[in-house]
């Protein structure tokens, strides 16, 4: 069971990386694409908790860091998504007496988008990457957060449903709506 769960999570992350780098840029809004990997990390965190969020975020971010066309210092997305995943997992822990509602999910996605972009840009600034432009940061974060909520409407229920199929029976009543 755990092996199946880990395999499914890895599969989701890999699909998200491929789609985010090759397909989604073609429907970008002002150049900003949907952070599909971040959404999958949030979905995994919401269904399995902070440890899963942090580890899934690290793995997904690492893939974003090394899969072409990435050209920045490796580890920046890994750190950003690990922190977002952990925080998203905490949201579910605090409210797991009931399922996280749609509004809660949307807010979690926005929070995670803001946190991950902030960490990613801040590490870039620390490393003196001239590409980071704080003047554009607000606008791009706004568009990205809006776009991510739209993407999350489709992706999060799907991932959470699949993950809920493979939880042990004794955990079901706790996680399932």
């Amino acid at each position, binding site marked *: 069971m755990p092996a199946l769960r880990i395999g499914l999570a890895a599969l989701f992350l890999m699909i998200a990386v491929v789609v985010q*780098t090759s397909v989604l840029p073609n429907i970008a809004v002002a150049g900003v694409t949907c952070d599909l990997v971040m959404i999958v990390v949030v979905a995994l965190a919401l269904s399995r908790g902070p440890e899963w969020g942090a580890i899934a975020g690290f793995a997904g971010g690492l893939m974003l860091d090394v899969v*072409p066309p990435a050209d920045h210092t490796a580890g920046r997305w890994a750190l950003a998504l690990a922190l977002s995943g952990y925080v998203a997992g905490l949201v579910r822990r605090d409210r797991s007496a009931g399922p996280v509602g749609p509004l809660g999910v949307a807010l979690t996605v926005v929070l995670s988008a803001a946190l991950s972009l902030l960490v990613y840009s801040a590490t870039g600034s620390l490393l003196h990457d001239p590409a980071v432009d704080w003047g554009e940061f607000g606008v791009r974060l706004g568009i990205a957060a809006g776009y991510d909520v739209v993407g999350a409407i489709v992706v999060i229920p799907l991932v959470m449903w699949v993950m809920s199929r493979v939880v042990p029976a004794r955990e079901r009543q706790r996680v399932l709506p």
Partner: protein
Amino acid sequence: MLKDLGTPARGLVRSAALPREIRRRRTVLVLVILASFTLIVLDARRSAGSPVEPLRHAAAAVFGPLESGATSARQPVDNLRDRFAEVDRLKAENEKLKADNEKLTSDLRTTDYARNRAAELDRLLKVAPAYTVTPARVIGIGSAQSFNHTVTIDAGTADGVRPDMTVLNGDGLVGRVVRTTEGTATVLLIGDRNSTVGGRLSSTMALGFVSGRGEVAGTLDYKLVDLRARPKVGDRIVTWGSKGNAPYVPGVPIGTVTSVTPNQGTLGSTATVKSFVDPSRIDLVGVVTGPPARPPRSTVSPEKGR
């Protein structure tokens, strides 16, 4: 009833958040953060050969074919986008055609002059147009929120593509190759803030540097070496080529000057350049892999050719 169901669940949560579990998940968080920082530190000193490089190669080997396959699924997406953009596009095209018509009419009147000038420019630039170009397709695009203006192309070392090669398409200069693997290569676009290209005003032959602004539209800044030289709106900029033709070959069109502002507090002026290549619409590109051309050898003289 609902309350009865709710109570044991609440109890379970309490028990789930035992100090031991909290400690465990904090350990996981700390480990993951430490791993990220280790990666950043290892990869930050690039000159010494990053240990992350094999990882990048492995990732490109696995994800390159996947990205290539996923790009084939782009057609329906493109159609959808085009349908929305159709009316705007037709309007814009109509205006463009009208403008083109006027321009062509006036060009027809000055064609001899233009031909002479073109011949002169050709001679001055000493462009040898005998580049061998390896065609490639764009299979991955960096997103704006990561501030990366890079793309992946589906040609690599197996096709003779090496780092520091010029990438162009039918419209003009696209960028340069920064990293290659067996089957893919990463291209830094000229619109990236890390990119600087040597550019020459084709009207006055003045030399300058074109640097990216990191904007989605691919707007560029142009600064002249000669502080007295003034670029004019509508001037075209071509590459002047680098030593040994790496990373840029000479004579590739970059863009047109759209506005000129005097520098604050210092001599000289900065021109805003619109690149010929629309960075959001690049698909088929060519990598210059062929026989090197001689770099241009004319001197800087702002008066020449006016």
